[in-house]
């Protein structure tokens, strides 16, 4: 027995030793993340609008907090989570006290407030996303106010309640005031500032430091041994982290297969092949995006689309599972709500699930159109769909050329609607054309500036009936979707005007909705209402596939998979 005990003790000791060895991981290797989408525009991220730019700079400067795969908060630059006052108007942020700029000076609340007040809110810089920090007070659009409380604390004050403004606050990242003041007021100098374009100021703010950026080729970062979050554990564990740009998706996939890169996204079509490669680990993770079919309810769309019942009938005819299966190769889920499934606010209960189960019924769809007067019944009992003037119904379906998923969805919808006797004409147009000619609208005959929603009576330059588009939304703040679905929503290009929906959106942002339970109820109601109203046909949530070389460890597959990437390592 004792021998056994000794042996056991020995084994335990050994394993502990092994563990401790494991803990002292050594930084090694180069992590290469491949992409075939375009290069970033700038590292001077405050000027950027493309997500690649934010992504690049984000490796060197952390935001206040990050979210893990369960949407739980992981503190980054913030010392604790953003505190919201009882009345929902004052937001207090406390940052860590060990944050340093490259010259060794501390990152202070002053820097954050300066970034907001003097850069983002300024007239000269033209921060593209300034409206994130604006509110409407007495019919006027004004900026919120930011104030330094002490060295590490600052507060943001709103005059109107917005329940989900906190999610904006959490994304905040600072610009170094001591450098930025040199360029203040001169947009050209600011744009060309070497410190910002080479990210030389980032100090210990991110796991990696900027090393090299070869345009249209690669963005190289090197390990930041000073990283505030992980210097004690030796993280990050990659000597270099590289984003490599490929000219085509084909070569990108080939590079992953050949082991030339560490990680990339995999086209759903190729998953069958890639999961069989034992030198790779592939994961399927949820995404924030959903596909939708917009119905043009403006005056230059088919008049029937203004009727809820017609929209419902059309949605009933389109098989969502078929879309998932055929277009997304199974990597997706039918969607019924404007809240993406991975969102903590998502609720399944009571949703009208058009396009699956009992609400997928082509005959019922025809019957309904017949009831509404948009069809005639022939002697043999067959129903023929007609437009308001009795001619066979012909609808135009638009999407952006070159996006294969969208195009495929259009093809499939064409087939589905053909089955109930609606002829669909597909129009694949360049993205810029889609934006300018189909989505932007104005009231004809006026010299209005075209916008996405110029209110009732505004129409787009080219007529259209349906449009397939992919939306990328923030799962945490569904109320932000009011831009699409409320009467005054700036992106409500399809012209859906419903006062009940407007009211619920207002409610979701209101003071009482600060109570998460209340908000949950509002969203539940809104989801159900919208699933009935069908302002658009929510088609499917997409799943993403990612592939890593099998020697990468520390991965936590999920919607926010990269949240702990500074702890990843090579075995």
């Amino acid at each position, binding site marked *: 027995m004792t021998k056994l005990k000794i042996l056991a003790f020995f084994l335990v000791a050994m394993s502990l030793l092994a563990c401790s060895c494991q803990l002292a991981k050594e930084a090694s290797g180069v992590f290469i993340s491949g992409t075939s989408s375009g290069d970033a525009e700038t590292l001077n991220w405050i000027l950027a609008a493309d997500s690649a730019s934010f992504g690049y700079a984000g490796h060197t400067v952390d935001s206040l907090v990050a979210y893990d795969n369960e949407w739980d908060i992981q503190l980054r630059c913030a010392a604790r989570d953003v505190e919201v006052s009882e009345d929902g108007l004052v937001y207090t942020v406390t940052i860590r006290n060990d944050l340093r700029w490259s010259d060794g000076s501390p990152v202070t609340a002053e820097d954050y407030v300066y970034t907001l007040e003097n850069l983002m809110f300024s007239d000269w810089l033209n921060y593209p996303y300034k409206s994130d920090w604006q509110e409407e007070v007495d019919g006027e659009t004004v900026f919120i106010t930011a104030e330094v409380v002490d060295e590490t604390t600052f507060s943001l004050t709103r005059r109107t309640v917005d329940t989900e403004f906190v999610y904006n606050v959490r994304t905040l990242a600072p610009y170094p005031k001591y450098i930025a003041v040199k360029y203040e007021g001169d947009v050209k100098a600011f744009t060309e500032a070497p410190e910002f374009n080479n990210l030389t100021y980032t100090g210990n703010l991110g796991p990696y430091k900027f090393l090299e950026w070869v345009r249209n080729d690669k963005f190289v970062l090197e390990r930041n041994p000073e990283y505030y979050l992980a210097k004690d554990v030796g993280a990050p564990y990659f000597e270099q982290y590289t984003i490599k740009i490929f000219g085509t998706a084909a070569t990108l996939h080939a590079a992953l297969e050949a082991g030339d890169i560490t990680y990339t996204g995999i086209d759903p079509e190729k998953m069958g092949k890639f999961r069989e490669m034992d030198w790779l680990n592939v994961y399927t993770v949820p995404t924030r995006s959903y596909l939708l079919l917009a119905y043009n309810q403006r005056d230059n769309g088919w008049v029937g689309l203004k009727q809820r019942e017609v929209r419902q009938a059309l949605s009933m005819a389109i098989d969502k599972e078929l879309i998932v299966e055929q277009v997304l190769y199974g990597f997706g889920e039918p969607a019924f709500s404007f809240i993406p499934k991975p969102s903590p606010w998502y609720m399944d209960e009571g949703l009208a699930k058009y396009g699956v189960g009992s609400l997928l019924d082509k005959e019922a769809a025809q019957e309904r159109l017949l009831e509404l007067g948009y069809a005639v019944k022939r002697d043999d009992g067959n129903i023929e769909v007609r437009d308001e003037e009795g001619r066979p119904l012909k609808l135009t379906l638009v999407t952006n050329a070159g996006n294969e998923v969208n195009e495929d969805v259009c093809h499939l919808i064409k*087939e589905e609607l053909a089955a109930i006797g609606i002829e669909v004409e597909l129009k694949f147009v360049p993205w810029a054309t889609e934006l300018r000619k189909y989505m932007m609208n104005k009231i004809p005959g006026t010299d209005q500036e075209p916008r996405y929603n110029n209110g009732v009576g505004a129409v787009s330059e080219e007529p259209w009936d349906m449009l397939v588009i992919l939306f990328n939304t923030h799962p945490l703040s569904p109320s932000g979707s009011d831009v699409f679905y409320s009467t005054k929503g700036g992106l409500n290009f399809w012209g859906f005007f419903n006062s009940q929906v407007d009211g619920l959106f207002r409610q979701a942002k209101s003071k009482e909705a600060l109570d998460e339970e209340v908000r949950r109820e509002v969203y539940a109601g809104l989801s159900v209402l919208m699933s009935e109203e069908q302002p658009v046909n929510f088609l499917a949530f997409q799943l993403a596939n990612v592939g890593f070389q099998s020697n990468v460890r520390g991965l936590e597959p999920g919607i926010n998979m990269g949240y702990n990437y500074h702890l990843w390592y090579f075995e």
Partner: protein
Amino acid sequence: MTKRFGIRNLALILPALLIGLTLLLDIFVIETIVEPLVYLYIALGGIFIIYVISPLYASRRLVNYYWQRVKRNRLAVAGLGFILFLILLAIIGPFLTADPTAVSFEEKNIPPVGFTLKESIYELETGQFITRTATGDWQHPLGTDNKGRDLLAMIISGAGVSLQVGLLATGIALALGTLIGVISAYFGGKTDNILMRFTDIMMTFPFFLLLVLIVFIFGANLAIIVLVIGLTGWTGTARLIRSETLSLRTREFIMAAKALGASDGRVVLTHLVPNVISLIIVIATLSIPGVIVAEAALSFIGLGDPAVTSWGMVLRAGQQTLDTAWWVAVAPGVMLFLTVLAFNFVGDGLRDAFDPRSSL
């Protein structure tokens, strides 16, 4: 002589009338817009009849003589056969095959006849991957792509696109190039100087960059692609025709025509142009492949006309699925290659046949 001029004038007036008529129809009668390409067809068809068919018909014996010379070159004959086959395919094919844009998701990635493909597919209900075996059948002789579109139909449609672009753009380029070359050589002096300097400028423009720029700005439309290639691709022709015409200018029949009081226009159009026709035919055959490849390259980088199915687009789609459905990229690639090869063979054969030095 007079009779032939009659035919010429008729051939000149007829297309003009047709264009006018189409324009009127376009504006007042037909609601749908007449494809801009239609105008090009009519215009170029007229020019083709006046300057290619009519002189060739007028000198049947010479044509026959050259044909005998071409016939000795087996590669050229094979190339010509392939081109004729392709033209036939492009004209008749669409009536025999399915709609090349018809998507059928149930039938995706079917391999060509005689091939079997095993693929691993994610099944939605079970969340498992299952292995599916697809075997090619005669329903889709060349198989289908990842949208279940019939590859044969796409190839046939692409043949039409490639030939249209190749012929029309080359037609424009040659018409322009010939005109500029002949005028430049005939009038000489200042005209020559200005025209040749202009040619120099055009030649200096990086052609493909310009092509991409204009197509990006004005939209990827077949008519625009044709026009841009045509309007920028005439420079080489102009130079060649110019030097050829320079040697003709002092020949007796031109002198005679001038002495008889023919106007400059008449001399250029009825005496000079027909006499460089053999050179034009050679240039045409040798520049068509370049145009076809340029269009394919445009489509390959995503600037093709989305309204038509061209080889370049199929190739673009196919190269993304090379590892799962190789045939999609192979078929248009091979067709593109064979077409270009065929035109090169024919062009080379014609050049040898027209070359008095080659003994063959």
